[in-house]
């Protein structure tokens, strides 16, 4: 289990959270849902040690989290210009493993071509293969389904479900259906980093909660006009 205990983080101009305690299960896909700018990517940057919490502890199975235990698929993955797909996988994985090559074949990725010529979805797919094959105990996926075609989306979900054993997988998305399809639990983050945890059997109430928020916003809009 990955746990943040009583953590506080703020940018110079904005407090993101204070005294946050949140946990993500092992052997499960943990969905993270929340509006734009609520701090999902900030949380991921903290887990990957790019940003540091002001106060609190982050532990994986009771011991402080080592940044090298975490793989992250960023919203817009980084690629060096003039780099071929094969070279990228070799660089990230140390060697082009059979598993990575098989996954690339499943996703129809031309590994001998320059990544500069890949579409947005293809870039997401190759970065997804790379982080998946790093085989680290914590896998963070920041909006992995954006820009990926329907077939690719379904493949990604199926692969994630197969690969979740022995790992903590954290996945954010703004596409509710993708998240409810793939996740075992969903953390619905709201203002002030207050969150509600929804298990698979209570996704209907998550839908209702989101519906209520939207209704109240539309109502306030109507009241103003």
């Amino acid at each position, binding site marked *: 289990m990955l746990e943040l205990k009583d953590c506080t983080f703020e940018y*110079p101009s904005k407090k993101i959270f204070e005294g946050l305690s949140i946990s993500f299960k092992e052997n499960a896909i943990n969905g993270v849902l929340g509006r734009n700018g609520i701090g999902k990517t900030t949380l991921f940057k903290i887990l990957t040690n790019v940003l540091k919490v002001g106060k609190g502890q982050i532990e994986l199975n009771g011991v402080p989290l080592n940044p*090298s235990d975490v*793989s992250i698929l960023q919203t817009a993955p980084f690629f060096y210009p003039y780099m071929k797909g094969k070279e990228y996988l070799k660089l990230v994985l140390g060697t082009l493993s059979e598993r990575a090559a098989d996954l690339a074949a499943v996703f129809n990725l031309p590994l001998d071509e320059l990544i500069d010529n890949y579409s947005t979805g293809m870039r997401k797919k190759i970065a997804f293969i790379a982080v998946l094959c790093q085989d680290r105990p914590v896998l963070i996926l920041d909006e992995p389904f954006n820009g990926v075609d329907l077939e690719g989306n379904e493949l990604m979900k199926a692969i994630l479900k197969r690969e979740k054993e022995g790992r903590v997988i954290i996945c954010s998305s703004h596409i509710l259906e993708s998240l409810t399809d793939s996740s075992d639990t969903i953390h619905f983050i709201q203002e002030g980093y207050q969150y509600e945890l929804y298990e698979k059997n209570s996704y209907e109430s998550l839908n209702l909660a989101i519906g209520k928020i939207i209704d109240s916003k539309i109502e306030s809009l109507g009241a103003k006009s």
Partner: protein
Amino acid sequence: MNNIVALLRFRLIQSNRLLKDAGYLMVVIVAFLTLSVISQGFVFILECPPEVYGIAAFVLLILLHNQRKDTVFLESLFQHKYEIILLYCLEYLLVQLPFVILFISTGSWMKLAVAVLSSGLVSLSAKASTALFSSSNRKSGIRFIPLSLFELKFFLERNVLLIFILVALLGLTVYHFGFFFVLILLFSITIMGVFVPVEDRSMVNWSKYFVANKLLKYTLAVQVLLLPAFCLALFNRPDLWMWYAWAYGMALLNLWMFITYKYSRYAPDRIEIGSSNALAIFVLFNFLPGTFIVSLIYTIINYVKAERNLIAYYART
């Protein structure tokens, strides 16, 4: 360690592909021009005190480091912190390679040590500076720059640390005139980034002599930085006034070139996509005595084109 070797090897392959893509003949021309520019700088660098070279190298490398987009990727790639530091250090030494060779060949061991030290310091402070930049990158409002200079205002709001570095360089000009040239170089690099984004044409609030007014506004605005620097350098070493005047003029020409280039792309029916490679060559021309005439002519042509384009567009609407 294997990752470091793999990355450096890839950098070589990448450079070769880039050169091939640009065309080898073009590369030879650009290399010749670059060497012409650098050769003048070599003499200056050999003569300046080691601390001036060290501070200038540190400032420019820190800025270069914070323009990197691969820091998060590298953090996730390496298992150990020292590997990233070593990689940065090697890369920043490679960036200084022409100077490193110069220092070795002339036996300037002190400056060689300073070059290694500046690479090491930037690499060691990389983490802190990334955190500082990533927090300052969260757009903060700068009130002292009016909205009419929105290109500069928005650029600096995203790069607040750059203001402090420019002001620090201005202050250091009191200590050594060499910082004036570093400031001019940094100013020119900054300007390259300021005028790159092109706003939608509906946002161009056109009036008669729109581009000329823009040139005048920016020329006056940048005096806040350039003029005190010029005066301080003059106070430091008055005998070098011609060199200062040349650098000052070239910085302004660079500014005008980027403004006119930006608006020359507003063709009546679409916004043209320009080639940044061609512009980079003109920047090099800009700093060569004699060939700056080419940049000046290019700027004048772009100015005429820009005013004509905007008149044509607004005559239609």
